[in-house]
């Protein structure tokens, strides 16, 4: 098994190297305004790093991302637990969560800008709004899927309401919460870039937009690639955490295999 996965990794690496080589070869034939190629992008990346522009933009983006994502996680988990546990909350509030999950909330960005202007807080709000729904939905579904027998175990040992929540529901729901958190990573990165396009003054999205308008295509690719690396790393990090916190759930959360 191990040598097989090693070989799989080697095949992936070769595939990527070939793709980069082909891109380099054919990319040079194309007008540099319409496309770019790896060595030009590397060159642009060097300039962006050397000038400190990339780091500044990255930090600006990350600030909004972290604040938006973490608040989405905290509020999403709490809301999901309440919706799953209390039937009254589910009947009263569930319908709004469903509605919000099905609406393309990106459409509300102009309204958010109207409320909060073009600063940091509007970025955070947009990231929050897009990241929160997979977390709520997964946590909610997780609570609903806690086996009845485990809840009965709580009854049999005379567990209080809060003990049932802490000792049974929360740990049983953890794998679902982690899935929600993983899905939210991708969505919050998209939200971050979209927010920066709208506010267009800062962050990696700002760099992309400025480079695009200045017809500096190679430069534009640098933050895009950085975002890809960021998305992959964060998703892997959460996947790794997912297995770390719920090692008993080997089969149901095997997404990174």
């Amino acid at each position, binding site marked *: 098994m191990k040598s097989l996965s090693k070989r799989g990794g080697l095949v992936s690496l070769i595939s990527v190297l070939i793709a980069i080589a082909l891109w380099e070869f054919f990319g040079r034939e194309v007008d540099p305004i319409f496309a770019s190629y790896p060595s030009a992008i590397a060159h642009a990346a060097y300039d962006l790093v050397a000038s400190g522009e990339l780091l500044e933009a990255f930090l600006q983006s990350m600030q909004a991302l972290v604040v938006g994502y973490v608040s989405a996680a905290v509020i999403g988990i709490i809301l999901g637990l309440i919706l799953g546990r209390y039937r009254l909350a589910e009947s009263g509030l569930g319908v709004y969560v469903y509605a919000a999950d099905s609406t393309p909330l990106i459409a509300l960005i102009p309204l958010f800008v109207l409320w909060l202007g073009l600063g940091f807080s509007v970025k955070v709000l947009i990231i929050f709004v897009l990241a929160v729904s997979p977390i709520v939905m997964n946590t909610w579904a997780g609570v609903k899927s806690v*086996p009845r*027998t*485990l809840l*009965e*175990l*709580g*009854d*049999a*040992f*005379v*567990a*209080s309401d809060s*003990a049932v929540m802490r*000792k*049974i529901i929360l*740990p*049983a729901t*953890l794998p679902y919460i982690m899935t929600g958190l993983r899905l939210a990573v991708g969505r919050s990165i998209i939200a971050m870039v979209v927010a920066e396009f709208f506010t267009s003054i800062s962050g990696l999205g700002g760099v992309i937009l400025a480079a695009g308008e200045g017809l500096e295509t190679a430069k534009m690719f640098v933050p895009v690639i950085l975002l890809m690396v960021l998305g992959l790393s964060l998703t892997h990090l959460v996947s790794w955490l997912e297995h770390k916190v*719920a*090692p*008993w*759930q*080997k089969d149901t959360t095997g997404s990174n295999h």
Partner: protein
Amino acid sequence: MSANNVKVRIKDVVKTFETKVNGKATTLRALNGVSLDIMEGEFVAFTGRSGCGKTTMLRVIMGLQQATSGTVEVDGKVVTKCGYDRGMVFQHADLLPWRNALENIEFGLELKGVAPAERRATAQRMLELVGLEHSAHSRPDQLSGGMKQRVGIARAFAIDPEVMLMDEPYGALDPHTRETMQIELSTLHQKTGKTIVFVTHDIEEAMLLADRVVIFSPKGVIHEVVKINLPRSAAERMEMADSEEYIKKRMHIWKTLKMINDPNCLETPKSLEEAA
């Protein structure tokens, strides 16, 4: 065993369920007036076919379900909800998958409010009692079916209940493991002197373990209570499977179950006393 002390008194318990059959609201009568006294230290087996109410009766004693009418008293106190005077062993052990064996045993002690150091010590002792001291740190997914059920039993014994309620705990185990577990339970029973109510659909199991076998009829009533006059140790009883008492009682329970569950049978089976 103080033979004259009633531990559990079941009085005229009726339990109905509202369900829908083909879209029509129907009342199902799971228990139809059950009365029984269970003595302190006694091992009573509830047996009968599926749907006869034996498990429902156990759950009513536990307080997981409320009787529609009638009462259950434990030590003279009417049962209204679950309490630490009763311990439950579930059919599929129902361990918490994120806790290891030791932590699973501690679960009830935590809820009972036992201090951490004492909790750990008690859990450790219980683990030894069921012979799992080497698997203290194994999670349920690393334990076999028999080991899981041993942890379930240790968890119930850990809170030191007066009455142990066991719902077909060995039903899912292979015959070999089951036999070992039956002997262990019998030893545990004699060591602790707990009152045990044990639901089983396996006549052999009831014969090996019980002081009295309670036969539930499909109508949700007790059809007959059969006293088993054999030594209490299951290991000894296994050796006596060819004795007259064993064969006679086993045959009687089997025939009775067969007759009361046969819809075409008009004759009510005679109880042992009537037959004598």
